[in-house]
């Protein structure tokens, strides 16, 4: 198979932001909103990049699939999930918004504001309309919950929780939550609240308590102290028999409504399962029918399946942690040996180092040139960067924010680097979701909304021209999120949010064909430089090879489908995020996810489930003759973790971009100090 010179890059200083919010939609502290698709193996299928001016304190789904967010900016924002941008936003009129909740029928939104008001908005087609204020008192409303019958709203504030009658707008109950703690002068913040259909109101507060109240009588039913620090978040299962809470120590707890005795009708809430998956505040929890989902300030999203709801051990039953985005934030200029790192508001361009030495497996070679940070490009304005790309020759850099597209020409003269902005870029439908330069760096492809791809021609010195806009013949409401271009510049593959893969002929700018629909999200795709076969990785870990000239799946792809992939391969929990090829070895496909790098050799047999999938270390111990029988197509290397990006620079030179978790953990705010034994 041969040896690679691996450029092990660890200077990509990405710090993921912590999530907050609910359900499948997740907002990070930097304002980004991510949509995870449970059906597609929890693939992070949509990302709406954040905006410095727009924090998201609350997210809720309403009126079907409409997603609303509200934040300390005081605005209620509706997101356009097909264009992945803000559709419209309305000022709440009550100062910073701390909480928002939609009623069960999805027709009304209630927001809790800094000024102590709870405001109702009507959800109408094409927007929301202010309806009225409920009874206003002092004190910010930190959390809200509708009664499942939509008759009442419970709102948590500081030291107090209130219940409003929706139709009259009157406060029908006030409950002092710190009533039972006389001596403590600290204020008690009700961080989270839930209204159960039985009339029980569940609160979690800064004293570490989870309390159950009878709202009509205003009495405390049960109180559970789960933590010495605050319980920040709370979520109730749909059946109202289970509650998950998240604390500021990073622990989550499950409460279950269980009969006092077997067969008894009397039931009580019992704290059943503690989990400690986070190191920092658990800012958001959600309770799906089969799993507890928690997001913490340590930037992790954890999906913890409830084993009692699982019928069998399998992909669904595994604990899942998401730390890194499921998309590419790094692009590589192969010929120029440059790396472009995309941060939320700036780009960094680095030149890789080099060595003159060679060595054996595992050796670290002495550097003759150190890596060099060439340029930092800062994006102006509050908008975060959607996508970025560097051309293979390294002389072009492009990026896009929600409203602007930038193209730069980078010139290298000896050691000095100059960056020149290309003036008068054509006005296009923005934002761009993916940028891709052609192999010869002559043109740039811009993935855009409604399934369209713009083709720009790059002109020396420092100019560009809009050549064409490619669109699927039948139209498409969703934006294109992945692009792949063939090395000969003949073909372009584009994946839109509805997971359809359209292939265009670039010679005549015509739609060539559509890859047969597969009911799962595409996570990565690439076109082979020699055979022009399109290799597609799906979020269910399936791999397909589609011959573009022949408009059909290749024989190898059919073999893979007949034979089936190895069980361990299918059970991996992070998607393939990048595919590339080795031109010198046409049978090789190079792919990677967060935890492994794999060279797939199509000339070798596929492994059976009984075979060892990760067999590299075994193979290395075997004598040359014995190896032959053990070889299989998947050559997996797990040495580099977590792997954000891997690419082939030339035939025996790889670049791997790692982001050790410890490196960014040190940059996160300190967690609450916890007494541990022996410290």
């Amino acid at each position, binding site marked *: *198979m041969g040896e690679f010179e691996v450029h*092990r890059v660890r*200077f990509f200083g990405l710090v993921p932001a912590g999530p907050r919010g609910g359900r499948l939609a997740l907002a990070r502290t930097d304002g980004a909103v991510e949509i995870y698709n449970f059906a597609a193996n929890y693939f992070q299928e949509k990302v709406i990049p954040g905006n410095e001016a727009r924090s998201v304190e609350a997210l809720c789904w309403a009126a079907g699939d409409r997603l609303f967010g509200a934040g300390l900016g005081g605005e209620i924002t509706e997101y356009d999930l097909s264009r992945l941008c803000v559709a419209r936003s309305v000022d709440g009129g009550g100062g910073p918004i701390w909480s928002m909740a939609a009623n069960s029928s999805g027709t009304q939104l209630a927001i809790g504001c800094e000024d102590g008001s709870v405001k109702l908005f009507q959800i109408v087609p094409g927007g929301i309309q202010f309806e009225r204020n409920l009874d206003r008192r002092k004190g910010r409303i930190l959390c809200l919950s509708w009664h499942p019958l939509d008759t009442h709203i419970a709102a948590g504030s500081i030291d107090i929780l209130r219940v409003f009658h929706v139709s009259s707008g009157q406060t029908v109950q006030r409950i002092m939550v710190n009533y039972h703690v006389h001596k403590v002068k600290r204020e008690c913040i009700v961080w989270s609240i839930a209204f159960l259909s039985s009339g029980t109101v569940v609160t979690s507060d800064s004293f570490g308590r989870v309390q159950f109240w009878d709202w009509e009588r205003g009495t405390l039913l049960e109180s559970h102290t789960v933590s010495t620090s605050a319980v920040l978040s709370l979520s109730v299962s749909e059946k109202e028999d289970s509650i998950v809470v998240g604390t500021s120590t990073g622990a989550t707890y499950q409460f279950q409504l269980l009969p006092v005795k077997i067969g008894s009708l009397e039931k009580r809430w019992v704290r059943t399962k503690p989990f400690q998956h986070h190191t920092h505040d658990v800012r958001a929890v959600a309770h799906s029918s089969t799993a507890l989902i928690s997001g913490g300030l340590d930037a992790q999203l954890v999906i913890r399946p409830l084993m009692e709801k699982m019928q069998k051990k399998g992909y669904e039953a595994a604990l899942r942690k998401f730390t890194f985005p499921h998309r590419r934030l790094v692009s590589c200029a192969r010929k120029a040996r440059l790396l472009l790192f995309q941060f939320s508001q700036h780009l960094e361009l680095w030149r890789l180092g*080099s060595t003159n030495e060679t060595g054996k*497996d595992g050796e670290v070679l002495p550097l003759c040139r150190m890596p060099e940070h060439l340029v930092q490009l800062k994006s102006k304005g509050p908008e975060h960067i959607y996508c970025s790309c560097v051309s293979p020759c390294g002389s072009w850099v492009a990026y896009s924010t929600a409203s602007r597209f930038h193209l730069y020409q980078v010139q290298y003269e000896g050691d000095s680097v100059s960056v020149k902005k290309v003036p008068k870029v054509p006005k296009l439908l923005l934002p761009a979701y993916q940028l891709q330069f052609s192999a010869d760096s002559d043109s740039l492809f811009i993935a855009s909304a409604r399934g369209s791809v713009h083709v720009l021609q790059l002109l020396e010195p420092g100019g560009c021209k809009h050549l064409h806009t490619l669109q699927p013949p039948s139209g498409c409401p969703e934006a294109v999120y992945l692009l792949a271009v063939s090395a000969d510049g003949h073909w372009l593959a584009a994946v839109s949010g509805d997971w359809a893969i359209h292939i265009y002929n670039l010679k005549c700018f015509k739609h060539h064909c559509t890859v047969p629909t597969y009911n799962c999200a595409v996570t990565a795709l690439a076109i082979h430089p020699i055979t022009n076969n399109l290799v597609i990785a799906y979020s269910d870990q399936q791999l397909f090879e589609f011959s573009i000239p022949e408009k059909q799946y290749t024989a190898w792809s059919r073999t893979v489908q007949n034979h089936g992939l190895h069980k361990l391969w299918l059970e991996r929990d992070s998607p393939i995020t990048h595919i590339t090829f080795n031109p010198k070895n046409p049978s090789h496909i190079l792919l990677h996810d967060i935890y492994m790098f794999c060279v797939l050799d199509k000339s070798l047999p596929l492994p059976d489930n009984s075979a060892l999938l990760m067999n590299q270390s075994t193979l290395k111990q075997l004598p040359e003759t014995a190896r032959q029988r053990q070889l299989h197509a998947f050559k997996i290397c797990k040495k580099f973790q977590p792997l954000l990006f891997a690419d082939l620079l030339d035939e025996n030179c790889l670049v791997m971009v790692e982001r050790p978790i410890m490196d960014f953990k040190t940059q996160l705010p300190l967690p609450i100090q916890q007494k541990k034994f022996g410290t």
Partner: protein
Amino acid sequence: VTDQKPLGCWSVKHGQIITCPVVCNFETHEYIAVHDDKVLRIWKNTDINLDKVFKATLSADVYRIHSLPYGGPTVLFKGGGVRTLDVLLEAPQQEIENVISDEVIKWSEAFMDGEQPVLIFATEKDGDFFVYIQKLKMSSLHKYKLEQQELSKPLSFTAYIKNQIITLLCLYSNDSVYKVLIPLQQNSEEEEHILSKSQLLKLSISGNILKGTSFVVLDKDHIAVLGSLAAPGEESKEYLTIWNTKFQTLQTSKELPLATSGQLWCYEEKLFFTHGKVLTVIMYKCETSSLAAAVGKHKDSQTPDVSSFVNWNTLADEELVVSFRSQESVALKSESKMTLRSKRNTVAKVQPDPLSVGQILLNLKDTSTTVFEDELRQLISKARMPDFQASIGCVVTALINRCKTNPKYYPRNFLLHIVQTRDLSYSLCPDLMALALEKKDVHLLQICLQRFPDIPEEITYACLKVFLSISEAYLQRIDVNLESVICYIDIEFNNKEVKSEIVENGFNAELEQDIWNTKITDKTHLTADGSFCPVGPQKAALLNAVLHSAYSETFLLPHLKNLPAQQAVLFLRYLYYLYVKSSEKINITLPGIRSPTVSQIMDWMCLLLDAHFTVMVMLPEAKELLSNLHKFVRAQVRFYSELNKIEGSLRELQRLNHQKDSQTYSIEVLELI
């Protein structure tokens, strides 16, 4: 019972009263009833009218009739007299003696002990309770008095017989069940034993008291109690409960909302009681009592226990024969005999030799010393017997018994030989070390300390005391195993002599000065700095054997407190010497075989200081030793804290080294096959 249909019904004439429970004679299938205290009626299933059946009028009032399988019905009269039915029917009007004068029978029960029926009954008089045991065939009657229990008296009795012991369980009015053991084989005709009882169970369910009314024994670990549970503030409810007496746990309970008659019977794994107007039958099954079952964690495993370890019962048997005849409690004795019956058969099959070790030993009891020893030698040189280990124990015990009876006899070498060549343990021959202590056989004690894994702390201490008190001169003459000291002590010993020579020659002025000073003061000062061994090599070897033995601090400490002060100081001095000696080496160990480890030295030092803290403070000669010891320990602590620092720095260095490879950029070689 769902379908209760009487199979037969008989009634006495109006005005007559049935005065005791009707029984069935198992052999003839006849029913026997007593009405109006004296009139006996006997009939069969086929008889319809009770008036026309056999009738016999007796001369005394009947208390109860007991029917036993194979034993025939037995009649207990209210006066305590007992007759079998056959005897009684021969002459119904015979005179029945009154054995209990004015005591009143409260309860009675009959058993079969092997072939003979045994009747037990309890009587009361003025608050005192008595138990009578009547063996019918031997017509022997024993009377016992039940131990008094303040403020409560027995309400109900039940009993069972096992291994010739009657276990009498009494339910007292203080809601406890007591157990009384009554041996059947009581030959002495003393008048009125007092039976002591032990509390078996307190009938309390989560703090509430179960007022028991009647109870039965289910098996050796389970009893069923019928009673009412009175929870505070609630109406009391009647419950049938099953208790595990071994672990004092309530196994199961059943609420009986309708009243019961307060009576409970048990027959063939079924419990019978009246509940409301019906007779309720409950099948029960007691699983083998285990802790797991008692705490409710028993898994229903049906695999029978197959034990394949050494047969300790045979040992118990032989020891019984040889020495422990009188010491064993009657209960244990009979129990082991019972269990042995089967096992001895299997042993006999393997070993056709009709003479067991025990019997040989018994035969040898009165032979001459030489013959005795020869025989024993032969015995232990025999090829491995199935229970060889146990036999050796018997042989040693026999030897020791002989020594005890004959104070002049002490087979030192023979005993040494046995201890050295066989894997003995303390518990196999507990008298051996005591004897050696008595005879001051330090060599044997040393070997025992080295070889026995289970010496009690008391004996360890006794050995220590003997070793410390024996004079060096006496030890010089004795052969002791010196392998534990030879590697470090002899050189020192010579050095000491050499040094004194130097002093005498006066080579070094400074040294001379020193020595002069020390010569003036006590000689102990010379050794107080820990560089000279305060004891001779023999004594050191013996002490090392003590240091090596296993002990538990809690048990050793009280004994160690009794060590005379001088001996304690000497021992501490020796320990100090060992400590200094061991810290000379880089690996802090003493050379040689079986030399004490530094942790053993430390532990004993701490223990000794703990035990003699006040003495050490007061004793003038201990003062300098303690201060030297303190200095030395302090120096060591400082040294180790420095080492700690170095270790920390080294670790940090290693960590930094480690970090180096996780730098931000490197070019590495990766080979994929």
